[in-house]
């Protein structure tokens, strides 16, 4: 397994997404990228718009699902196609898990010919954040298409 990366997992009706890396932030960044790739062809798309997001959850799984859903909401509200995300902070703070990130994207109109499938939501179905056998962190869940 590469140091960090992402892929999709078969699910009959919808789609599983998975990201992995040296830490939870990398795994989350990669999972987000897997989700962005379902929505649009991203290769060669200049990401010159930046948006900040923050979210929280009671555990790492809830944080993951919240994070992905926050990205879907923001992309829609701001008419953007997100390309990549960079997590600045992620950790447990008191009873909850929190993260802050910057997301880079392009205006939807510029990505017009690249749009694919609308991701309706990230779900808790199959959601997990765990250390894999190779000592890498893995974040996964099913998204509703």
């Amino acid at each position: 397994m590469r140091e960090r990366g992402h892929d999709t997992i078969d699910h009959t009706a919808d789609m599983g997404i998975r990201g992995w890396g040296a830490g939870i932030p990398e795994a989350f960044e990669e999972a987000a990228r897997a989700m962005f790739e379902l929505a649009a062809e991203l290769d060669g798309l200049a990401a010159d718009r930046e948006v900040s997001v923050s979210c929280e959850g009671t555990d790492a799984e809830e944080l993951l699902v919240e994070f992905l859903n926050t990205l879907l909401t923001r992309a829609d509200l701001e008419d953007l196609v997100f390309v990549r995300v960079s997590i600045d902070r992620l950790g447990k703070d008191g009873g909850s898990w929190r993260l802050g990130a910057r997301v880079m994207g392009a205006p939807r109109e510029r990505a017009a010919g690249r749009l694919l499938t609308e991701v309706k939501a990230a779900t808790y179905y199959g959601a997990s954040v765990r250390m894999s056998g190779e000592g890498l962190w893995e974040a996964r869940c099913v998204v509703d298409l």
Partner: protein
Amino acid sequence: MNTVKVRKVHDYLWEIPRENGMHVPGRIYADERSMQHLMAESRSKEWDALLQVRNVACLPGIQRASLAMADIHPGYGFPIGGVGAFDVETGVVTIAGVGFDINCGVRTMTVDIPLAEIKRNRERLADAIFRTVPAGLGSTGSLKLSRKEIDKVLTSGARYVLERGYGLAADLDFVEENGCVPGADPSCVSEHAKERQFKQVGTLGSGNHYLEVQYVDTIFDQHAARVFGLMENSVVVSIHTGSRALGHQIGTDYQKVLRRASEKYRIPILEAELVGAPITSPEGKQYIAAVKAGINCAFANRQVIGELVRRAFKETFGIDDTMIRTLYEVGHNNLKFERHTVDGKDRELLVHRKGATRAFGPGRPEVPEPYRSVGHPVLVGGTMGTSSFILVGTERGMEETFGSAVHGAGRLKSRKQAMREYRGERIIGDLGSAGIVVRVHSTRGAAEEAPGAYKDVEQVVSIMEGAGVSRRVVRLKPIVCVKG
């Protein structure tokens, strides 16, 4: 490893007997072949539709059985094709039984133009529809609404957009609930949800949403077809879409609320998405009021698209509005308060249908008066390029499935597998050679939705007919297909 035990009841019905933790048995409409497929999938994969049927049977207040229609496949929490009815006093409302595309459904309209004329002009018609009906990811609608107007859509549904000049008053006589459910509360819907929606009313969306021009190629039930005004070669338009971003955001917002509520009210969480709240709890009431807002939004959406379809036909054929009549509109991701007889008693229940269509048989007051002698049309979308069906419900369906039937063919292969096996351009070319004009916003989408990725819709509707739950009235074949 799967531990769900299944026993055969008859050729088209299987049961998961009630055991530990289950309040009722699970019942799955399937034939031998489709049950073998479900059991194999259940043994070998992470996603297990049979286990999902079993899990739903463990929710408090569930009545009669946790049901799955013949188009069953794994969902999240509920299986797709799942039906669960709950006692309004002791039962729960669960997000898994509604999903993120609230009141996703189908409207079918009849078109009073001869089939030959439609066929001669199909390319022009396809272009006109493609231009007129916004579709695809991020598309925006022709109706721009202010925040205040969005609240009116949420409370008044199709009625509000009718006032704004979209469609004909007669349309609403043939829409479930006449296009508006009472009890929707916009204050239970987040600002984000409303903000996402104000530019999306009247858009088709993407994925499995579509718009098809079809014709009646086979009549199975002459009497019911006559009651619906359908004859051989009658032309219809079917619109498959839902509540768009508003529904997605309501789902996202309440997912978290209902996770908390499940813990608070000690509802067993057997799967992460299978969370909910007692129907009588504040959280349950708020969620239901929000879902109703989503239901109304979907009604409004299809009413606007119905009008856009009329405009596309007018542009192509110069016809009058009244030559396109709404046959029926019915949702398949829904919550409904309905009266049913359980154990000989007339009871009020909250019925969840996740990828299942209401199929009320003869005599029910919910069925529009002109159809009441046979039951309302049950609109079942097939796959792109194959066929769709119009069914009717039966008395037996009322007794067994709370008046529910299938909603489509049901996926067989994952999208990923479909993309490996099919090329969008090839699918579109093949359908073109078969006389079906396809217009898509994403060719990858065409591969994902390839006919081969779905179960055989003929088999699915035959199972329900074999079980006596619903009956085929007509089969429809596509001429033009527009996808997001």
